[in-house]
């Protein structure tokens, strides 16, 4: 028996068309979702991250134009995800109807009142939500990061519903908005992984990729992540675990805010499963992400999700005074906000002098292909390595940040001996 959905007076007012047909459509989409999710009521949200600005067809544009034509008004601060094109550099993708409409779509969301941050890592910008806030997330890595690392609460809201929720300021009281749905059900323990490797940037991508595939629809908790685990590391897990497994929330005992310890993360209930992660699991994960044989590399793609200030801080000294090989390109995707920070530091100039290209507003693994993206591509992102082979005409190889930097300079795979399979497999 489905529960009844109780609407408050304002919800009903919107649904009855009291604020016009666009707000009525928005409330209809929200209440329809609430019924499918068995919610009994709607709750307020304080923030939205909008994915519907990422063009995939004319319907995207028709929807927002309808909203604009019928006086739709956002109820909460709403920030934009990446767009298909870069507004800052329109020549980045082949120009045509798609690029033109993609740009029109992005501009339409600005007119609707969204803050044009154009980033899949909005959590790197100041003014992010707080622990316990109910918000609207849409892009998968951001949903997982908000839920897991910040402890804000969101389900993964698909295109149109994300906008509808931002317009009405309401979401169904269901799923990850509720305490009991946030309980860890599955433990991944890391004591079999050598301690040195648990501090490597590469490790967090491999762990996320492995755990996503093993979690199914369950919420995992990690035990044994080091205290040095950074937000960049947690971003890597968020992106990888949401790509390989659709996991929208994970916990890390002693690290993430809802998991001061294992028992709290599990809400005092015994987990269904405990999986000891073995070195062989991570070695296999690396192999599955790194399909291309070693050899000449045509491009190195960094910044999925968008490269952070601290990642630029780590990368810049690796490239300073050196130059990317003539046969290779180094592409770094980031937000305008972070680019402005690193420009002020002088790092952008240093990196560009080394031959790196810094791209804002968009991401590099989507079709149509970015200019110059062909042949064999190396990335430090498990998410990029997971999606790109199906979307782009490229071969993918995967490595650590340092391996990516050295590879860009050499123009062919450079492998860090300290991260060799035998080193990971050795007893800690």
């Amino acid at each position, binding site marked *: 028996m489905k529960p009844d959905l109780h609407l408050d007076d304002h919800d009903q007012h919107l649904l009855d068309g009291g604020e016009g047909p666009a707000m009525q459509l928005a409330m209809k989409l929200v209440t329809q979702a609430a019924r499918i999710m068995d919610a009994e009521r709607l709750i307020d949200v304080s923030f939205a991250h909008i994915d519907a600005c990422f063009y995939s067809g*004319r319907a995207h544009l028709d929807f927002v134009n309808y909203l604009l034509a019928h006086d739709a008004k956002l109820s909460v601060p709403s920030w934009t995800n990446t767009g298909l094109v870069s507004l800052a550099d329109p020549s980045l993708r082949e120009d045509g109807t798609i690029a033109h409409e993609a740009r029109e779509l992005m501009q339409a969301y600005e007119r609707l009142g969204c803050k044009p941050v154009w980033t899949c890592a909005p959590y790197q910008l100041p003014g992010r939500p707080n622990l316990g806030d109910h918000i609207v997330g849409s892009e998968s890595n951001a949903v997982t990061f908000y839920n897991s690392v910040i402890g804000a609460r969101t389900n993964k809201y698909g295109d149109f519903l994300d906008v509808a929720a931002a317009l009405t300021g309401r979401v169904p009281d269901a799923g990850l908005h509720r305490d009991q749905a946030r309980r860890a059900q599955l433990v991944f323990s890391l004591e079999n992984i050598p301690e040195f490797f648990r501090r490597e940037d590469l490790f967090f991508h491999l762990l996320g990729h492995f755990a996503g595939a093993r979690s199914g629809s369950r919420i995992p908790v990690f035990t044994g992540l080091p205290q040095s685990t950074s937000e960049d590391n947690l971003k890597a897990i968020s992106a990888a675990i949401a790509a390989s497994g659709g996991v929208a929330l994970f916990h890390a005992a002693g690290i993430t805010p809802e998991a001061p310890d294992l028992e709290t993360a599990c809400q005092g209930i015994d987990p269904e499963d405990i999986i000891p992660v073995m070195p062989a699991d991570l070695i296999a994960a690396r192999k599955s992400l790194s399909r291309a044989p070693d050899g000449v590399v045509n491009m190195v793609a960094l910044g999925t999700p968008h490269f952070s200030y601290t990642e630029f801080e780590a990368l810049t000294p690796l490239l300073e005074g050196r130059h990317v090989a003539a046969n290779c390109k180094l592409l770094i995707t980031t937000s305008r906000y972070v680019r402005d920070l690193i420009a002020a530091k002088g790092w952008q100039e240093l990196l560009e002098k080394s031959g790196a290209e810094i791209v804002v507003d968009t991401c590099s693994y989507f079709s149509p292909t970015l200019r110059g993206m062909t042949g064999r591509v190396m990335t430090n992102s498990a998410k990029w390595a997971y999606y790109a082979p199906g979307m782009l005409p490229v071969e993918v190889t995967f490595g650590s940040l340092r391996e990516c930097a050295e590879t860009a300079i050499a123009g062919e795979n450079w492998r860090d001996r300290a991260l060799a399979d035998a080193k990971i497999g050795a007893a800690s």
Partner: protein
Amino acid sequence: MSKNWFQGEILHAGDANGPLLVLDEPLSFWGGFDPLTGTILDQHHPQAGETVGDKILALRETRGSAGTPAAIAEAIRRGCGPLAFLLVKPDVNIVTGVSVAAHLYDKKVPVIAILGNEFHQLQFVQTAKISPDGLVTCR
């Protein structure tokens, strides 16, 4: 099969009548599906290469992706989307895409939730008819 009709749960009302395409695996409508042609793109999917246009599409569930509603609405707009969806697991993304298409383009594509054993029976029939009251009749 034991009976040739069953009563589904209406997630989005409408009527449809046509050949059935029953998916053996869940599908991601973003990345795994081309909304310009209605073709299943995911090379790992057993029915890769099949088109969903002018068919009643039965699937247990989707692989969730934020891009799903827009892909569905775009396929419907272009006339290469399914005539109707039959789902075992009710899906917010599909209903959102279908609702937006109905609102913007006045094209009504029913979405009906059915039971797992009913889904299983669909493998043995060729065509189906969906009535506005959610009745699914198989032939």
